[in-house]
């Protein structure tokens, strides 16, 4: 199942938007945070986990999804949210804590909820998995189209929720796909120090489900493998586990000194940045022109800029609104 040119361009565009979005956030995040770096300050306070480099995972999977399909993501959600079609303006506003944000500022960057496209995420490791299983159960019981995808990090694959969710999904043969973004690090801890085996796709056998590994942070390869798994889920044949080799180009969160990285790792990762790679591929194999590329880059930047402007220009909520929405 190879992606068409159109699909490749869709993926490429989402990757560009995601990358520019993260780069914008990165810059704005630092506003108000000097001379002393204090998370609490600036237009974007709090923790900030960027997904630069991991865009292929998001687009390769989400290229197969409809708005009605369900995605749960993690503390590092922006790339997936963008690929799933989350409202970029309102997501930006949420990250700024504005009234126009997806949750009116209550959630922030680790709690992006856009029910229109069935996207949500959570800041607790591996805890999006149960909800994905439950959403898949809901579709199965309602005989309603749609599947669920749970994204998680390779560090999360050692949590109890991983085991329980995979087992439950398999026992009930639910239409759900589990996607591990293996970026080699859980904060400062290397995968090899936390995971008893080399690749988590091998754990699929413990649940009698297919497991796939996708090397190389390659969106086209991810597209193929994810497509199979998602088709399988849609056919009612049950869950699949996928592990994707990916790269975290930024620190774990902003402010991370990244002292744990071996010398040269960052350079090596940047040399393999998936965005220029995909661009080159498009040019080499799909007749993508420099002019077309410049236009798309322009358009993607503009889309991000508009979202950021929307967020900046929006008002903060009234403090007392904190008391609303506890119960509906």
């Amino acid at each position, binding site marked *: 199942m190879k992606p068409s040119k159109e699909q490749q361009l869709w993926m490429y565009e989402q990757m560009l938007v995601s990358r520019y979005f993260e780069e914008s956030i990165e810059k704005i995040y630092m506003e108000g945070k000097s001379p002393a770096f204090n998370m609490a300050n600036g237009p974007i306070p709090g923790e900030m986990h960027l997904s630069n480099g991991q865009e292929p995972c998001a687009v390769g999977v989400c290229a197969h999804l409809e708005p009605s399909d369900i995605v749960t993501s993690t503390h590092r959600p922006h790339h997936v949210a963008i690929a799933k079609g989350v409202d970029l303006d309102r997501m930006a506003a949420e990250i700024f804590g504005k009234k126009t944000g997806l949750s009116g500022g209550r959630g922030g960057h680790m709690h992006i909820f856009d029910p229109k496209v069935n996207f949500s995420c959570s800041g607790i490791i591996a805890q999006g998995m*149960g*909800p994905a299983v439950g959403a*898949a*159960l809901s579709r199965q019981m309602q005989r309603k189209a749609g599947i669920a995808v749970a994204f998680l990090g390779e560090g999360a694959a050692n949590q109890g929720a991983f085991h329980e969710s995979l087992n439950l999904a398999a026992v009930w043969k639910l239409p759900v796909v589990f996607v591990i973004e293996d970026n080699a690090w859980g904060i400062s801890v290397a995968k090899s120090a936390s995971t008893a085996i080399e690749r988590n796709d091998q754990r699929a056998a413990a649940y009698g489900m297919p497991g796939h590994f996708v090397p190389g942070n390659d969106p086209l390869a991810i597209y193929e493998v994810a497509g199979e798994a998602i088709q399988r889920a849609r056919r009612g044949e049950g869950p699949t586990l996928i592990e994707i080799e990916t790269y975290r180009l930024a620190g774990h969160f902003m402010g991370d000194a990244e002292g744990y990285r071996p010398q040269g790792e960052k350079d090596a990762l940047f040399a393999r940045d998936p965005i220029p790679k995909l661009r080159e591929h498009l040019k080499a194999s799909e007749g993508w022109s420099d002019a077309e590329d410049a236009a798309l880059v322009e358009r993607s930047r503009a889309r991000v800029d508009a979202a950021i402007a929307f967020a900046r220009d929006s008002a903060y909520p009234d403090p007392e609104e904190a008391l609303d929405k506890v119960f509906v």
Partner: protein
Amino acid sequence: MTVATKERKLTIARAMAEAIAQEMRIDERVFVMGEDIGPLGGVFGNTRGLYDEFGAERVRDTPISETAFMGAAVGAASDGMRPIVELMFVDFFGVCFDAIYNLMAKNTYFSGGEVKVPVVLMTSTGGGYSDAGQHSQCLHATFAHLPGMKVVAPSNAYDAKGLMTAAIRDDNPVIFMFHKALQGMGWLGTEKDAIVQVPEQAYEVPIGKAAVVREGSDVTIVGITSGVHHGLKAARQLAERGVSAEVLDLRSLVPLDREAIIASVRKTGRLIVVDEDYHSYGMSGEIISSVVEQGVPLKAAPQRVAYPDIPIPFTRPMEQWALPSADKIIAAFEKMESN
């Protein structure tokens, strides 16, 4: 023409099952999952008959994987279903509290009210039958302290049915705590006063409203589940001494009906709180503070009869000694009078 109303007393277990069945009949989105809630009908009988009527798809036995199925309840509820999920003993909350507390309770808020999480989490509480420290707790405050979940706990079958119906229809997550000693399962003993007349048709008992289950003028005894029955027994004994005790059944811990508590204490001027949950940092402290911080005039220092701050012991002499009782309530009243 007079219609003879059939007297029909139910146990809490049967009342719960009846409420669930009635809602399942009228609302396809309602389903039940948990351990041994299928053909077995629930270890505590509260899903009995459901499997036969609704089948394996809507009455689902789960693996022993509370984290997964509590999380799944959240995901299914967010996607339009209305799951009722059982945590067999409240004591097991520690294996799945994140899914309950960081997802079920908070997703509505985090989403700015956009995502509804209509889950009913039913769970058994309470001891008194020597099931020791991992199977006898109430943990009222552990759940009620954390915002985002409604918490109800009936003392009788009428309230059980009405609260369950209200809980299922509520768009918010509701923790439904049922006390094993009131449940009407013979093998756990049974508080007879919990078995009461229950209408056949569906009805709601409003969540967040306490009930005055006995009126009085000298002292207010506030309790929930087993505490209500201890309170009623104490009130009967106090009546023999000419003391008129009012007994308040909170029925809901969240929302807490502070108005009802304060109104009663304004009338009686005395307050005793009964709680089978641990003494410190719990329900008893909350009730007392809610009254005194309002400056309600008191005739005596308020008292509490709660479970001591110890893991619950197995052996009967220790276990029974530590539990709240009518005698302890009376002793608390006497202490008030002696000062």
